[in-house]
């Protein structure tokens, strides 16, 4: 129906532009929100969310109570929603859309399921245009019409897809739910009748959750490398904070300290508690096996804990500042200076030893070389003067050139050869310059850059 027709029939019609992206984002947000009921939640665009509640329903007082809870909460958020539970995801989808029945027990027999499905219209198969129109032309109105006919001719006429969907509806096959986030192996959570708003309460809860989580980790013989705390706000918003550790950790105090550090960093930027958080969940999203350490027999020698202390310190800094801001320098087998050192977040582990090196290198390196104008006596000679940041600098001493070629063994090197010079200007400042391009062989106008300072 065109907009003009609709307006003519109902002058008070409210019109809104369709925004599929925002719709998809909303469904994803709802899927995140529904993770409060089960860790396995998947958005089911355009208008559904699939939850795998196997083994989770009893936590909410049974399946019927769970359905009521979900529908009530969604209604309070402003959605009109229909929920259904069934032995298979396809059947649950169809129940929510085409039936008044809400709950089909998982031990229902195949005949009963077939009888149930037989009453659905063929639209429940959600087939594309041709097959659906074909079924209508053939006089098939209900799924029962399909079920009582032989499969072979139907499959030949309407395609294999139709039969697969029919089998999924009758739970003969079970199509998997692809959850939005993988379910972590270790989860601890706390629920509250009213939302928590004070930061101190959140911190206390994080401490309790860490204390709940650590025995689980200990029983499995692992330690956490990545932790995620998820806060479910009563109005449906979901906040998450993540921390990383540079070695497997299962000490509740340390874990709680890291989380609290991260929480206060987030709170400084503004943690909108709104009406409060009513579910807090802590999960170890990445774990690593960790052996037990012997405790308290003899005092360890001084310095024995240095690595552990440094690790704790870097974890704390990373929790506050962000994991990507606390770095350790790793040596890489590369000739180009900017690739010879990799700065990798400390949470990924300690670096290996650097190889001994003969060549002089500057103490500081720019993240990208800064172009300069340089004057040299010969096109391939050392520089005499250069202008960097609008200041002309006269070179009084230099060391070089050191020629560094780009990786020529790859396909078609995109870069030119560089000639590096250490130079000192009249003021006594030290620069690491390079000329890009061999004069006459690679380019006629080599460019100069300053790459580092000492």
């Amino acid at each position, binding site marked *: 129906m065109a907009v003009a027709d609709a307006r003519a029939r109902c002058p008070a019609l409210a019109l809104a532009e369709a925004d599929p992206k925002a719709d998809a984002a909303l469904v994803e947000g709802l899927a995140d929100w529904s993770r409060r009921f089960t860790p396995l939640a998947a958005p089911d665009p355009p208008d559904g969310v699939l939850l795998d509640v196997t083994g989770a329903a009893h936590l909410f007082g049974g399946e019927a109570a769970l359905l009521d809870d979900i529908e009530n909460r969604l209604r309070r958020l402003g959605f009109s929603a229909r929920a259904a539970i069934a032995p298979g995801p396809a059947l649950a989808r169809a129940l929510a859309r085409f039936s008044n029945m809400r709950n089909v027990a998982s031990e229902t027999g195949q005949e009963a399921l077939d009888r149930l499905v037989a009453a659905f219209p063929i639209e429940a198969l959600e087939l594309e245009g041709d097959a659906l129109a074909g079924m209508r032309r053939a006089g098939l109105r209900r799924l029962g019409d399909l079920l009582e006919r032989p499969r072979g001719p139907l499959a030949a006429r309407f395609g294999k897809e139709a039969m697969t969907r029919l089998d999924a509806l009758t739970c003969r096959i079970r199509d998997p739910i692809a959850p939005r986030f993988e379910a972590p192996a270790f989860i601890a959570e706390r629920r509250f009748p009213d939302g928590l708003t004070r930061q101190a309460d959140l911190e206390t809860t994080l401490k309790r959750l860490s204390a709940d989580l650590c025995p689980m980790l200990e029983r499995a013989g692992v330690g956490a490398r990545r932790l995620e705390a998820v806060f479910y706000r009563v109005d449906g918003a979901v906040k998450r904070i993540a921390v990383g550790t540079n070695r497997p950790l299962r000490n509740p105090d340390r874990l709680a300290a890291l989380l609290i550090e991260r929480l206060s960093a987030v709170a400084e930027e503004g943690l909108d508690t709104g009406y409060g958080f009513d579910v807090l969940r802590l999960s170890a999203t990445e774990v690593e096996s960790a052996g037990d350490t012997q405790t308290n027999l003899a005092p360890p020698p001084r310095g024995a804990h240095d690595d552990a*202390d440094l690790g704790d310190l870097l974890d704390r800094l990373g929790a506050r*500042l962000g994991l990507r*801001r606390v770095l350790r320098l790793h040596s890489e087998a590369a000739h180009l200076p900017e690739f*010879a050192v990799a700065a990798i977040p400390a949470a990924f582990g300690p670096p290996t030893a650097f190889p001994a090196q003969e060549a002089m*290198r500057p103490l500081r390196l720019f993240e990208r070389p800064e172009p300069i104008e340089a004057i040299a006596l010969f096109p391939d000679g050392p520089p005499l003067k250069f202008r960097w940041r609008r200041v002309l600098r*006269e070179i*009084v001493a*230099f060391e070089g050139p050191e020629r560094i070629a780009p990786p020529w063994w790859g396909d078609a090197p995109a870069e030119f050869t560089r000639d590096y010079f250490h130079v000192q200007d009249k003021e*006594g400042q030290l620069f690491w310059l390079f000329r890009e391009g061999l004069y006459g062989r690679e380019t006629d106008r080599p460019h100069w850059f300053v790459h580092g300072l000492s």
Partner: protein
Amino acid sequence: MSQGGVSERLLFLRRRIAAIEARGGAAARESLQDRRRCEEDGGDFLDPLFAAGRGSLSEIFPARPPDAPGAAAFALAMALKARAARASGALVFIVEEMSAREFGLPYGRGLAAAGVDLSRFALVRVRRPREGLWAMEEVLKSPACAAVVAEIFLEPRIYDLAASRRLLLAARRGGALGLLAAQGAEAARFSSAAELRVETAARPAAPAPPALATRPPLSPLAPFLWRLRVLKARAGLLGALGAFDPAQWRDIAFDPDRVAFRHAFPERLPAEAPDRPSAAPTSRLRA
């Protein structure tokens, strides 16, 4: 760097011979005494700061804004010395984003060549000065760290007596050396609880001989040479009260091989020899 150190010492000997040759005997003796005095109060005046396990806070200010990388390099040299005095512990370098854009990030290969053990080194990038001071305090409190260098754009509003006192107490607790390489700030604008405040500048190089088309080679020790003056030192830290003239600039060098500070001998050209046609040209070039 071992080769570098040896060639530097050779250079010194060669220069001394040139000086003896060039001048008369009395002048040579005088200059020798002069040097000996220099060596005596050379680099070891900072040594009390590095007494093992003694936490303290020092500020290093650049004399001019372009001297900031040099000030950070001096802080790094002090950190290396502190690490050597403690014989263990890690080194943490805190860089503010602004400073990283202005002067680049610390480079692993260069640090390794200067003697930094990169398996016990961490680089922390902070967005704001306040974050940097917080990170510095955390590092100082930790027993794992021997020294921390923080390169931060300071403001009197953020870094005041209370903030510096916090840092000093944290350093005392952890027994680490805190080095604040201030950027974009004048030393006179700050009052702080730091035990030592020095100002560093790059050493102006000897001017290049205009006749030469090329330039003399660079001394391998060049990154570790500074002009330095002690603006403030806590009474009794580096000697008696008034032992240091805050206006006196001294030349100081860091030897990464021995992990020690020493006096940087004045790099003077030897005088022209009056009785001989010309001195060896190489020695002039090397000077």
